[in-house]
């Protein structure tokens, strides 16, 4: 099975062959490195930019103005903050020009904790991104979704922010990408660049197929009756594990992988919460004005008389950074113990 970095690579390759993707660029995105997480290795349209995030976003805007498709990368979302007005502008251009100037572009950036990345390699961006109207924002939690979401993003006529949960980039999937060869070593031998001199290396791409995950569509990853957990990205597989473990203790937990932060699948959340009557939202951006607070607000507004417990948000503590030491990181962003505790607490509430 492909890992998420390989899945992203496969999607970029498919898009440059079939979706007229012209440029994949950013810091260390082109050869020889092919991205700090290797997600752009072997991509023929990949090139290295100056270490200039504003230039990267501006360049993507200009390319999109010409109608050409591009995927621009900000190496870590921790370094995207100096582009915030450009991101705002990308989001408002179609609207302010009254439909005259669409900007079909994709920006991808690794997000979140989980690699002991310290203060400037552990940030999240989903809550910030949700305040950028005009963008679509997606975040996969497994390689197959990463492949399908990235193809949808590249084909979309609007700007799409593709958030890569960096802790999951090396995690192998449980489902095959259509056209992916059997056996981990086969794919690795075909598309992973060798260590050392790779100046003459070229990937041998498998005949992968078109596969899209529609933007705005969530997926129920665990069926349950007693609690709904809504999550995405790094915390999603942890929520699945929590649901499995609680199942053994007699608690039936439904898990929704939101996959799209905007537009989000309200109908999936609503249907599930109407069934379970209780909801816990889990993500790892900071907790104050967290995107999940909007979802919890909406649950309160629209489902108040149907729910049996106050909607709960479990997110990162509202700290200025994520400390490097494991005792600091693990107690800043949600981990399995905290998610389990929060889930049991919400389940235990009585109306």
């Amino acid at each position, binding site marked *: 099975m492909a890992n998420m970095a390989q899945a992203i690579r496969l999607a970029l390759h498919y898009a440059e062959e079939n979706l007229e993707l012209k440029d994949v660029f950013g810091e260390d995105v082109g050869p020889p490195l092919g991205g700090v997480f290797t997600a752009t290795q072997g991509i023929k349209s990949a090139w290295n930019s100056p270490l200039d995030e504003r230039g990267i976003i501006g360049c993507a805007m200009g390319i999109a103005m010409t109608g050409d498709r591009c995927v621009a990368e900000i190496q870590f979302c921790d370094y995207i903050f100096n582009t915030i007005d450009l991101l705002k502008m990308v989001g408002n251009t179609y609207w302010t*020009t009254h439909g005259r100037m669409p900007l079909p572009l994709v920006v991808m950036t690794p997000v979140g904790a989980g690699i002991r990345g310290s203060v400037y390699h552990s940030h999240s961006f989903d809550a910030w991104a949700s305040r950028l109207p005009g963008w679509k924002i997606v975040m996969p939690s497994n390689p197959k979704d990463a492949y399908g979401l990235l193809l949808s993003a590249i084909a979309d006529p609007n700007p799409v922010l593709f958030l890569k949960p960096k802790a999951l980039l090396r995690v192998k999937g449980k489902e095959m990408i259509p056209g992916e060869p059997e056996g981990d070593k086969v794919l690795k031998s075909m598309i992973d660049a060798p260590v050392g001199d790779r100046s003459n290396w070229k990937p041998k791409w498998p005949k992968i197929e078109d596969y899209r995950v529609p933007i705005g569509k969530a997926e129920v990853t665990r069926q349950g009756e007693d609690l709904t957990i809504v999550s995405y990205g790094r915390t999603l597989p942890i929520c699945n594990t929590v649901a499995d473990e609680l199942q053994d203790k007699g608690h039936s937990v439904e898990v929704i992988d939101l996959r799209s932060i905007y537009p*989000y699948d309200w109908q999936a959340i609503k249907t599930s919460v109407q069934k379970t009557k209780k909801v816990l939202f889990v993500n790892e951006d900071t907790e104050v004005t967290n995107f999940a607070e909007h979802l919890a607000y909406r649950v309160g507004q629209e489902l108040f008389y149907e729910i049996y417990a106050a909607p709960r948000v479990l997110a990162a503590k509202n700290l200025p950074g994520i400390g490097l030491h494991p005792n600091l990181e693990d107690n800043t962003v949600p981990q399995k113990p905290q998610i389990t505790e929060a889930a049991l607490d919400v389940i235990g509430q009585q109306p």
Partner: protein
Amino acid sequence: MAKKKKKNKSTSSHSQQLPLPKNQILELYDLMVKARVLEERLIKIYKSGDAYFWIGGPGEEGFGVPLGLLINKGQGHNHDWLHLHYRCSPTLVAMGMPYIDAIRLIMNKATDINTGGRNFANHYCYPEWNVAPVTSPIEVQYSAAIGTAWAQHRENANGITIVSGGDAGTAEGDFASCLVWASRPGNELPLLITVQNNRWGISTSYDTQHGEQSIADRGKAFGMKTKVINANDPIEGYLGMKECIEYIRKNKKPMLVEFKVSRLYGHSSADGANLRNEEDCIQNLEEKLLNWKLITKEEIKNIRANYEAEAKKATEQARTEGGPEANTLWDHVYVDNENADWRNF
């Protein structure tokens, strides 16, 4: 017969002394007046209460009109891309923008094709002419220009990219980004980076903020050709612009060019929009035209009067038109009006 011969000889002799053919000089002058009358009309619209705000480019005609005349206008990589700022109306007038477009824009009419009543005066967008959206931040066009120039470079297209901004905006990082990205070895971009130096940033004087001898000098560090052009002399503005554009078309390499201009009505309506005592490029050209006997005072008066009548007529037309309805708020958040309102998810 003899008389006719004498006249031809006189015209021919006269043309040889001119820096440009007579018809080109007169066209340049005509469009500069056309652009100035538009800006003065926009100021009147603001002052009469028909607009909330004015910002524009009177005093920059010696830069803007030559640019509009010299570009390869059209859509696609093989035509020139323009990343303009909010003092760019002379360029668009020279390209053929009708007055009514600018007037509907400043009056926020639903018929405003540039923004649908959503944005400030002179914030244009003409995709059919490769004119990127004008925005209020003073620097962002310098980074977006990298992208259109890159696409033209990638496709080895015939078009080039031209970006404009003010002297104050060159302090922003995007200006440095533009210099860096335009001059990457092996990937030099066909990009004309221009600065209209009016020596003001709202109320702050150029002299108090710029230690460099000239803004154009900054290009030298990147190995790019640079030039300083006095656009208050429109003939110099035209010839200088022509040389720059021809250089970039031929060599596919960037240039940084500083155009000296005036800011005749201040920064915007926020500081009054009243005529200032600065050098006027149109008056300068008029004096030359009169000296060269290419035009009479009566003809000057008539040109202006005709454009004022045209502007007045367009204003009256726009006044009859309505503003955008509240139910259009969500239009064009996403392409094809895909729902963007979370209440309807």
